[in-house]
């Protein structure tokens, strides 16, 4: 068992360290726009990955670095994306909120709250349509459960018995608003309205997350339909880098870090199970090297290009091979590489 936990610890620590470095790079002006960190919630992405197969699909919100890493996207490709580089997983066009990795069946980071929930159901529709055994894990926040997209996505998945697990990462806040002011009932209680089974548990223990999700995943894979799982968690950082976080006390945050840090909990358990401090330190050092390499790689990579940007507005077209009618051809900027970044 400690073998698997060790692997999970490694993944969580990678996510933690990649994001800590991303935060530093953000403050140094190397990353722009919104940066929503997953720090504190790592056990969910990693535990969930342990409950599914590589051939299953994952889709999530803008808080997506952890999920991409857990799926298998490299630290290099994530850091380069954050830096707006051509070597990024979305070639510098998507940024922090829009990591996409087709190879690892990661259907992306999505920016409009609730917008991706039906997309997850759509991927599950595909799995059923093609009679594959694949399932979909669709992640979203507590703040997404009041919006229409949530209701419609769950309703359709339920009536069509789609192979999907809806996972609410309830970190207690929707930006600055505590759950009590956004939802009339617990998220899990909403499952009744869709006739779905539910589960609700604390998500700072990666082994618990994995075991509990296995039930819902197995049900989906057996063709018995979707489930709604509410996992209680906490984000240790602000909503995004620009959030001063005045809506909660320092004591609350510190208490959560002290008692519910998924990375530390896993590390302590490994030690208790007899994994030596020496081998843990060695693992940590490997991760440090990987993260440093990712930053150096991102820094040295070429900037995102006009060529890729223009070529990805529309797919190669049967109906209209030239794709653009020429009036507003984006190709008027006749350089393959953009002007230097940063305004």
């Amino acid at each position: 068992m400690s073998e698997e936990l060790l692997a999970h610890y490694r993944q969580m620590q990678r996510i933690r360290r990649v994001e800590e470095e991303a935060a530093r790079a953000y403050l140094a002006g190397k990353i722009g726009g919104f940066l929503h960190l997953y720090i504190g919630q790592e056990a969910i992405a990693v535990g969930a990955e342990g409950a599914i197969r590589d051939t299953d699909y994952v889709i999530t919100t803008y808080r997506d670095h952890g999920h991409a890493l857990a799926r298998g996207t490299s630290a290099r490709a994530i850091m380069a994306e954050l830096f707006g580089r051509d070597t990024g997983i979305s070639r510098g066009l998507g940024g922090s909120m829009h990591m996409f990795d087709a190879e690892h069946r990661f259907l992306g980071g999505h920016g409009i709250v609730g917008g991706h929930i039906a997309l997850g159901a759509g991927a599950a529709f595909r799995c059923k349509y093609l009679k594959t055994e694949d399932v979909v894990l669709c992640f979203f926040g507590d703040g997404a459960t009041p919006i229409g997209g949530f209701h419609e996505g769950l309703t359709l998945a339920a009536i069509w018995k789609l192979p999907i697990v809806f996972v609410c990462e309830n970190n207690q806040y929707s930006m600055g608003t505590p759950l009590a002011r956004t939802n009339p009932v617990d998220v899990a209680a909403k499952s009744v309205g869709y006739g779905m089974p539910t589960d609700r548990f604390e998500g700072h223990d990666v082994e618990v997350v994995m075991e509990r999700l296995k039930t819902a995943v197995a049900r989906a894979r057996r063709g018995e339909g979707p489930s709604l799982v509410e996992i209680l968690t906490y984000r240790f950082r602000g909503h995004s880098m620009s959030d001063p976080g005045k809506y909660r006390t320092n004591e609350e945050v510190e208490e959560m870090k002290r008692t519910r840090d998924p990375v530390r909990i896993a590390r302590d358990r490994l030690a208790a199970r007899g994994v030596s401090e020496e081998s843990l330190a060695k693992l940590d050092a490997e991760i440090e090297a990987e993260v440093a390499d990712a930053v150096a790689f991102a820094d040295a990579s070429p900037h995102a290009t006009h060529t890729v940007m223009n070529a990805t507005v529309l797919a190669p077209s049967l109906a209209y091979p030239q794709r653009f009618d020429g009036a507003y051809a984006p190709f008027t900027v006749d350089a393959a590489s953009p002007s230097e970044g940063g305004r």
Partner: protein
Amino acid sequence: MREITYRDALNEAIAEEMTRDPNVFLMGEEVGYYQGAYKVTRGLLEKFGAERVIDTPIAESGFAGVGVGAAMTGLRPIIEFMTWNFSFVAIDQIVNSAAKMLQMSAGQFKIPIVFRGPNASARQVGSQHSHSVDAIYTNFPGLYVVYPSTARDAKGLLKMAIRDDNPVVFLEGETLYSQKGEVPDASEDELIEFGKARIAREGKDVTVVTWGRPYATVLEVAKELEAEGISCEVIDPRTLRPLDHGTILESVKKTNRCVVVHEHWPYGGPGAEIVDRVQREAFDHLDSPVLRATNLDVPMPYAAGLENDVIVGKDRIKQTILKSLYR
């Protein structure tokens, strides 16, 4: 007169109108306890209480609809979208409910509502968070579309929007919030009428019509061109629907050239509408084709350098003006 930010000008407009009329209320995500995602509503919860400054869950279609229903029955809602990008999940209520109600009911139900929030690009927030929605909402009869470029206009136009009995789409420039400008004292209660363009700078060689984020850039370019002996007349329409083409035509008849500069994509929209009206009404006065400088016709990329190239900026504006002068 004193100098305040565009953000504070909006805040004052809301506060003054809420003080004047108890039926005016404010509703949206994070408008109360959080003091506004962009701090436009700072202090309003403390001033007016949670009954009138209402935090909503993320449910744009729901609270936009609640606003329209409340407006049908006599209240005067101000509905804030955290950004206009999120209005897309509520567009049915704006278009099918707010914009149609009066005529559908043969005049029985007025909809005195303001939908407001930050519009257009910010900084590197990517393709789903960078829409300039002016081209979308100006297409619908039954809505006014207002887009102030200065602090003074922001205040006077918002106060007017709140007092008017029609639904108003009120677009605020996200990048304009911190810009300062002269605004009359509160005691003056300045209201700015819709459909009255403002001549931001007088000139004689070319008319440049612009609003929103590029407004300040156009003024900078005009200053630079002045040094090169080119005199630009800069016009800010202030409201995109109704559109004051009279002021624009007067100017074009004097300068004989016209350039339109805007952030929404080039296909259609108020930019193309202005070009259409100018060519129809001032054809014989034109010495060159009416040109536009716009954002590039691609979804907004994340990378800083690309974004910088996509957003209409100084170089593109200058080149377009020079082109209209055959320089």
